[in-house]
């Protein structure tokens, strides 16, 4: 049973345009959400996070939006660059001492020059 879902396995965007990656979750107890970026043969790299008490967090070209009522979050990349081409993982965690992250399956983003 997937608690964190990324329903689009891939996304292709033109350089300079906006990339929007989506993520849905089922457990309303999640209180912390993160996006990771992964290149082939490398580990995931932290990109941006958001606490459940906020609905938006911005860091440069990256903005994460959280809609708790819809149990949905999205990552916006503006403007998209070819170097952004990677697999993007959405992750969520509970209020617990473990910090256990639950990951989605990932969305492969291709940014075309």
């Amino acid at each position, binding site marked *: 049973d997937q608690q964190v879902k990324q329903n689009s396995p891939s996304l292709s965007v033109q350089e300079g345009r906006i990339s929007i990656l989506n993520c849905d979750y089922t457990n309303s107890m999640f209180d*912390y959400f993160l996006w990771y970026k992964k290149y082939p043969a*490398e*580990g995931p790299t932290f990109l941006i*996070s958001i606490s459940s008490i906020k609905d938006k967090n911005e860091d440069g070209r990256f903005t994460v939006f959280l809609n708790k009522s819809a149990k949905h979050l999205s990552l916006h990349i503006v403007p998209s660059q070819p170097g952004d081409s990677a697999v993007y*993982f959405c992750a969520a965690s509970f209020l617990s*001492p473990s910090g256990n*992250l639950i*990951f989605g399956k990932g969305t492969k983003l291709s940014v075309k020059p």
Partner: protein
Amino acid sequence: DTAVSQTPKYLVTQMGNDKSIKCEQNLGHDTMYWYKQDSKKFLKIMFSYNNKELIINETVPNRFSPKSPDKAHLNLHINSLELGDSAVYFCASSQDRNQPQHFGDGTRLSIL
């Protein structure tokens, strides 16, 4: 100056063998983790250690055992390897649960 390093990067071995994967972090973090990425690409938590104490242990076979000689290391020992253990194993660390986890580059384990 790699933050989280894992060795080896590739590990090919036969069924029934015992193997270890090492992980070291130089970030001064208090918590370390092991994740498994299976053939379906899901990243799933296996273990985490906080100040040398196991604080979670997901439903993994007891053939897998984490060992932490000190705060900077969390090694993964696997006994009696099975075909289904083939996967990429990632080590990670974080200062605490409210901080992002930093990942190593993974160890690709292949069982023949």
